[in-house]
């Protein structure tokens, strides 16, 4: 049977401006999928953009291949990642100086 794991990297966190999630080790997994639940947003058109980042050592990061993802208002967004090496995190930004979004961020992994 294949191994799998789900981790909650942010829980009811209120995001503003630029942010990164904590590093998470994923070397054992072959596939990953991010899920971001926006529980509250400061306005219905508040946008949060997300970019997956990869790292060889958990210290130095670059953007992974793939599209930038956007959440607008409340709801659930998700995107897959493959061939990511040892670590994953999200680099993101809440657009607008006075905007915020309260989120749950899940990383799901499978070998």
């Amino acid at each position, binding site marked *: 049977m294949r191994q799998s*794991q789900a981790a909650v990297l942010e829980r009811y966190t209120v995001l503003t401006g630029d942010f990164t999630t904590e590093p998470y080790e994923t070397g054992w997994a072959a596939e990953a999928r991010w899920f971001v639940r926006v529980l509250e947003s400061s306005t219905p058109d508040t946008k949060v953009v997300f970019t997956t980042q990869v790292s060889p050592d958990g*210290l130095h990061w670059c953007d992974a291949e793939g599209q930038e993802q956007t959440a607008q208002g409340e709801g659930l967004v998700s995107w897959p990642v493959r061939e990511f090496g*040892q670590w994953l995190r999200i680099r993101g930004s809440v657009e607008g100086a006075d905007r915020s979004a309260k989120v749950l961020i899940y990383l799901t992994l499978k070998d």
Partner: protein
Amino acid sequence: MGSPTSDTTMDTAIAGHLRRAMLDADPVLSRYNPLSRILVFDQFNSGTHGWTELIGNHDGEGNLDTVDDHMRDFRPPQLSSCTFFDVGTHGAMTGTYALKVATRPVTGHTAVAIRRLTMAKKGRVQFETYFTYKAEAASEENGASTQAGAGDWDGNIHPSEQQFGAFTIATDICDDRGERYHTVMRYQNTDLDNQFTRRWMYPVVPEPTPREHLEGKAKLAATDDFTAPNPQDWRQIGESQSFCYNEVPTKVNWHYLRWQIDTEARKNIELQVNDRVYDLRDVPVPVYEERYDSLDNLLNFYVSARTHTGVRNFLFLDSVLVSVDW
């Protein structure tokens, strides 16, 4: 011909030798000293084995804003290949993966992983593990080399060693009458001023619970030391103990730990860590005054890492074995 009593004694001795010989013949188990029944044996090459992030309790609607501030960000444990910037993958003691408990780079942040079991009978319970601990290596982004605790590098002791705060192993136990208590062992590597203390400690008060918070008896801030928030409530056990941190944050040496308690007597018994054995029979076990429902025969184990500076702290477990004399 011997008496029935001496025959029984001899049979017991032979059974003990046979059992130990069988353990010794197993390259995986021979490094452990289990009691008569192995309850769990966790090697993290095959998953997390039930070790998960500890979280406080939430309301009937699933609103996680109702979780206590200090119990909502204990971080998910990671399956770690112990990979570092200088050598790549170090690997665990057994195979590639260890369980890693990692704090945020925030002074006072605690990361906690928990394993949830129950008791089929009261008696002796023993927790064994091979572990190691590290502060995160420095990078331009994390700025660890300029965080509190960083000092000069003398070619031997690395500045990062003073940036590791403490790790803790503990239980959460409730008997069938609702009487609840924790047994707790903490290795404090540095004090809150990032000075080496390198000592084992235990708290003399029970940990504040979500119910006590709901009843207005306790309110902790997000980075408070949830096990026992007041530093005055901790006592040292025996002499201080130094470990082979091995000079830099990227070299991993594994240490043996064996901790035995008695859930019948509600007492600590003994802690062995490498070459040291601490007699814990006089270490008190504080009990909650109130009785708890819904926790009959609770037997949880948790491990935590706590940073005393703005640097991530890591506790790695190669494997865990819990055994009982039931």
